[in-house]
C-alpha cells in the first residue's frame, strides 16, 4: 500500500515538473519573440540613421523690422516734407531659408529661395564640386565674384547696419554660368581667386543694366574675376581687386557691340585690439558702359551721355568683447556711402548717406539693430530732358531684428 502511494506521489511530482517546464518554456518562447522583434526594429532604425553619403541641411536668414521716413524735396529753394512709416520695413524684410545638400565630401548643392520686397525670388541655386585642394568648380545661378559685400556681408545677421550700402550690391549681379574659385596658402600669407563665365548684364534702352537673365541677349559671355590677398598670417586683413568685362547690347541691335566694363576694390580688416573688436570694411565700384544713343522714356527721343557710375562705402564698427555682461553684446557701427549715377542722363544723381547704428547681439547669430540713416540726393539729371533737378533728403529710423536660421 505504502509502495503504491509512493508511486502515485512520484508520478504526481513528475507530472507537476513536466507541466512547470512546459509553462516556463512557453513563457520563454513569448519573451524571446518580443526581444527578437525589438532587435529587428532597432536594426531597422540604426540602418535608417547611418551616416550615408547624402546630407541635407536647412539654414538661412530671416530679417524683419520697422522704418520711419522723413522726406524733404527741395526744388528752386522751395521745400516740401512728408513723413511715412512701414511695418515691416518694406526694403529690408527677408525670409530666406537656404537648403544645402552635401553628397559625400565633393559635391555641395545650394538653393536659397527668398520672400522679400520683390515677392518670391531665388538668391542662388548652384552645384559646387570640390575638385582638388584650392579648386572649387561651380555651375548654376550664383552671386558673381565682384567685390565681397554681396557674396559675404549682405545677410541681415552679418551686416552691422539695417541697410545695404547703396549701389554696392546693386552692381553685383547674380547670374547663370560656371565658376572656378579657391583659397591657396602663400607662405605666411594667403590668396584667393574667383573666376566666372556667365550670360552677363543686359543693356536697357535708357542706359541702365539688368542682370540674372536666363537667356543671353547676345553670343558674348561676360568674364568676372576677383583676386584677394591676405598679407598677414592672422588673416586680419584682406584686400581684393575685381573686374567684369563683357558686351551688354542686344544681338543684331545698333548697340550690339556696346561693352560694360566694371571694376571693384575691396578691403576687410577685422582685429581684436583688446578689449575692442575692430571691424573695418570698404568697397569701391566703377561701372563704365559705352556712350551710345539712349532712350529718353519721357518722349521716346534718343540722346547720349557719359554712362559712368560709381559707388563707395567705408564702414567701421567696434564691439567691447573684453567687457562683461550686457556691454559685451553691444556693437556700435558707422558707415559713409556715395553713389553717383551718370550726370546729364534722365537718372543722374550724386547721392551720399551717413548711417550710424547700435546693435545688441542676442547670441552669435541673432541681432537687434537700431539704425539711423541720413540720405541726400543732389540731382545731376538733364533739365532739358525734363528730369527732376532738385535735392532730396531722407532721414530714416530703423528697428530691425535678424537671425540666421
Amino acid at each position, binding site marked *: 500500500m505504502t509502495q503504491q502511494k509512493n508511486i502515485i506521489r512520484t508520478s504526481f511530482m513528475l507530472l507537476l515538473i513536466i507541466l512547470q517546464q512546459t509553462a516556463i518554456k512557453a513563457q520563454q518562447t513569448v519573451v524571446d519573440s518580443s526581444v527578437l522583434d525589438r532587435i529587428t526594429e532597432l536594426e531597422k532604425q540604426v540602418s535608417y540613421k547611418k*551616416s550615408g553619403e547624402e*546630407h541635407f*541641411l536647412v*539654414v538661412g536668414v530671416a530679417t524683419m523690422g520697422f522704418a520711419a521716413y522723413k522726406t524733404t524735396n527741395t526744388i528752386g529753394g522751395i521745400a516740401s516734407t512728408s513723413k511715412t512709416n512701414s511695418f515691416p520695413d518694406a526694403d529690408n524684410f527677408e525670409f530666406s531659408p537656404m537648403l*544645402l545638400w*552635401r553628397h559625400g*565630401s565633393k559635391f*555641395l548643392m*545650394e538653393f536659397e529661395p527668398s520672400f522679400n520686397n520683390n515677392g518670391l525670388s531665388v538668391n542662388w541655386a548652384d552645384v*559646387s564640386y*570640390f575638385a582638388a*585642394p*584650392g579648386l*572649387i568648380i*561651380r555651375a548654376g545661378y550664383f552671386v558673381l565674384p565682384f567685390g565681397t559685400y554681396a*557674396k*559675404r*556681408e549682405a545677410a541681415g*545677421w*552679418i551686416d552691422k547696419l539695417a541697410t545695404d550700402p547703396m549701389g554696392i550690391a546693386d552692381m553685383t549681379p547674380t547670374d547663370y554660368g560656371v565658376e572656378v*574659385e*579657391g*583659397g*591657396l*596658402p*602663400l*607662405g*605666411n600669407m*594667403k590668396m*584667393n*581667386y*574667383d573666376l566666372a563665365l556667365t550670360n552677363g548684364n543686359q543693356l536697357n534702352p535708357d542706359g541702365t543694366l539688368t542682370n540674372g537673365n536666363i537667356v543671353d541677349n547676345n553670343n558674348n559671355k561676360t568674364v568676372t574675376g576677383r583676386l*584677394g590677398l591676405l598679407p598677414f*598670417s*592672422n*588673416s*586680419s586683413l*584682406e584686400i581684393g581687386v575685381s573686374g567684369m568685362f563683357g558686351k551688354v547690347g542686344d544681338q543684331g541691335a545698333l548697340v550690339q557691340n556696346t561693352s560694360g566694363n566694371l571694376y571693384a576694390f575691396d578691403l*576687410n580688416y*577685422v582685429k581684436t585690439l583688446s578689449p575692442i*573688436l575692430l571691424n573695418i570694411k570698404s568697397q569701391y565700384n566703377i561701372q563704365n558702359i559705352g556712350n551710345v544713343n539712349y532712350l529718353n522714356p519721357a518722349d521716346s527721343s534718343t540722346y547720349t551721355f557719359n554712362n559712368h557710375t560709381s559707388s563707395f562705402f567705408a564702414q567701421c564698427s567696434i564691439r567691447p568683447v573684453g567687457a562683461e555682461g550686457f556691454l559685451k553684446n553691444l556693437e556700435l557701427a558707422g558707415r559713409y556711402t556715395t553713389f553717383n549715377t551718370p550726370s546729364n542722363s534722365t537718372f543722374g544723381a550724386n547721392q551720399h548717406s551717413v548711417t550710424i547704428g547700435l546693435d545688441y*547681439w542676442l*547670441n*552669435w*547669430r541673432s541681432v537687434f539693430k537700431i539704425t539711423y540713416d541720413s540720405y541726400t540726393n543732389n540731382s545731376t539729371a538733364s533739365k532739358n530732358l525734363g528730369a527732376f533737378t532738385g535735392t532730396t533728403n531722407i532721414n530714416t529710423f530703423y528697428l530691425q531684428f535678424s537671425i540666421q536660421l
Partner: protein
Amino acid sequence: MKRPKFKNISLLIATAFSIFIVVSLIDSCKVSQQVAAKSGAQLWAENCQRCHNTPSPSTFSAEQWETIGLHMQTRALITDDERKKIVDFLKQ
C-alpha cells in the same frame, strides 16, 4: 646686326625673370611652419570673424558641420587645410 643680339639677350633675361617669378610663386604656395602649426580653434577664431561672429560649436551636429564647412569655404575661400581643421574643432 647688333640690335637683334641685344633683343635676344633681353628676351633671354625676360624669360629667365619670368621663370624665376613663376618658380618663386609656386614655391611660396605652401604653408609656412607658423601657419601650419595653427590649431583648429585658432583658425576658427581668426577666420570666421572676418565676416560674422564666431559660431558656437554646439549649434550644429558633426555631420552638419561638415556641410557648413563646405558652404563656408565657397564664401570665405579659406584653404582646404583651414576648413578641415576648423570643422574638426567644431565637431568636438
